[in-house]
């Protein structure tokens, strides 16, 4: 399979592809080439990266012949990053209503970008436009820009946040490749096997551990969801990605590639990125159900929230067990490294992640649902 053909396939597989850079050069010293050099020996199949820009932000892996290509969409990373910045920007607003309003505007803007009225025909489209116009009149604000340019992302300092943003998703995808080639067992060291979730029996063991933190209605949901196997696959890859990013932080440190302050900031960053990413995924999935925008569609949306809650709880539990002294993400202290945004990371996590102890949805998810109700009022 020639590079030209693979490149064409990546372009074909990308959602509204704007450009593709394939194959990613291995001989240039950059964080991504370090990532590729670290991941490649772990997979018994050729692994390559493609940098892509998708019109509709996406992040995917393509298997062409025996080659795995992880397509890193700079627009997807830009959306996650921008959304995080926008959401965290609302945190210092003291007035609760104003803070809620700022978040709501962000969510409405996200919906507009991901499920635009133009995707619909009559009678939904005019109704959506009407709802959006009314919302805009009430808030009196211009739209929020929440997508960061690829250039901005590359200019970020090489620190834990950079690793979380650029590496976590790629490592997650690499873990999927390892599952397929059978190389995944070496990913989890023997002494961590009890912590990892790689099949249904392991997941069951962990549900017991998670009873205290998983929302009551989610406790057994793992086993009653439509497709628990794929969910377990995702959970495993989240956990594997975390281990890989930890390893990469060490590699980057050894290569004197950036400034690293410590594992708590890395965890902090990963959880923030993960929360923003999950909110985007929900919109992606809702968009895929665009033809089912009905009570059924929204029910599916809530099921996705449940899947995300479970994934988050499992990752949180894994990290808490793995990193000594961190009993729960909710207990993290504010870390100085979070100065990228100038806000306390722990606050960000508490605001954005699932509030496991209180078994409640996070502000972002609840606001997103409220925003959906506003945008689609009268459409269902």
């Amino acid at each position, binding site marked *: 399979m020639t590079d030209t053909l693979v490149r064409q396939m990546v372009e074909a597989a990308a959602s509204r592809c704007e450009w593709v850079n394939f194959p990613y050069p291995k001989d240039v010293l950059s964080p991504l080439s370090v990532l590729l050099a670290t991941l490649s020996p772990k997979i018994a199949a050729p692994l390559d990266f493609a940098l892509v820009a998708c019109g509709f932000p996406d992040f995917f892996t393509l298997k062409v012949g025996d080659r795995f290509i992880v397509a890193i969409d700079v627009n997807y990373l830009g959306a996650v990053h921008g959304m995080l910045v926008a959401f965290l920007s609302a945190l210092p607003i003291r007035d609760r209503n104003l803070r809620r309003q700022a978040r709501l505007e962000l969510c409405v803007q996200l919906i507009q970008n991901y499920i635009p009225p133009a995707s619909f025909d009559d009678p939904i489209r005019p109704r959506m436009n009407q709802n959006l116009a009314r919302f805009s009149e009430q808030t009196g604000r211009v739209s929020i820009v929440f997508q960061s340019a690829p250039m901005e992302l590359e200019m970020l300092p090489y620190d834990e946040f950079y690793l979380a943003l650029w590496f976590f*998703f790629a490592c997650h*995808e690499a873990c999927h490749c390892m599952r397929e080639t059978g190389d995944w067992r070496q990913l989890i060291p023997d002494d961590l096997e009890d912590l990892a979730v790689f099949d249904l029996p392991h997941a069951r063991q962990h549900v017991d551990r998670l009873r205290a933190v998983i929302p009551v209605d989610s406790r057994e949901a793992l086993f009653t969801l439509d497709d628990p196997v794929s969910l377990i696959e995702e959970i495993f890859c989240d956990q594997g990605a975390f281990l890989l990013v930890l390893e990469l932080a060490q590699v980057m440190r050894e290569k004197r590639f950036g400034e690293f302050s410590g594992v708590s900031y890395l965890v902090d960053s990963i959880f923030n990125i993960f929360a923003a990413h999950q909110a985007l995924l929900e919109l992606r999935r809702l968009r895929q159900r665009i033809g089912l925008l009905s009570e059924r569609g929204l029910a599916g949306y809530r099921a996705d929230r449940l899947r995300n809650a479970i994934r988050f709880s499992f990752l949180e539990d894994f990290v808490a067990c793995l990193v000594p002294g961190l009993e729960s993400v909710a207990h993290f202290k504010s870390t100085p490294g979070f100065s990228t945004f100038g806000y306390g990371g722990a606050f960000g996590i508490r605001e954005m992640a699932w509030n496991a102890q209180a078994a409640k949805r996070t502000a972002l998810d609840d606001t997103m649902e409220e925003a959906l109700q506003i945008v689609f009022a009268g459409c269902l």
Partner: protein
Amino acid sequence: MDASMILHVTPQAAATLSDELARCTGVTPVCAQRSSLDGTLPEVVIAVFAAKEAIRLARDVILKYVDSKVIRSIKMGDFEAQFATRESAEKLYNLFLQAQSGSADATRSSVDVDPS
């Protein structure tokens, strides 16, 4: 105008569809398995590159698989249906063939019709 056809299809029926396309067009499609970060909708991308005549010959097969909901989205040249239905697939074919013969404006467009 580009004369390639890209199909996003469910993994289960991808091999059968690919074989059938190869039989009826004489062109072997290129297949790639695609999985996305959300992990919910893995799919296979089937591409027939630069083969206008093959695309024309594949019409009945495409419509058959659209009806059986194997094909999720179709892109032909600059036209695409993100949510493939018989109606949008037929519209897509008409636009594509018209554009190829020079009787339609070959600008990029989506032909999605009410997917519900």
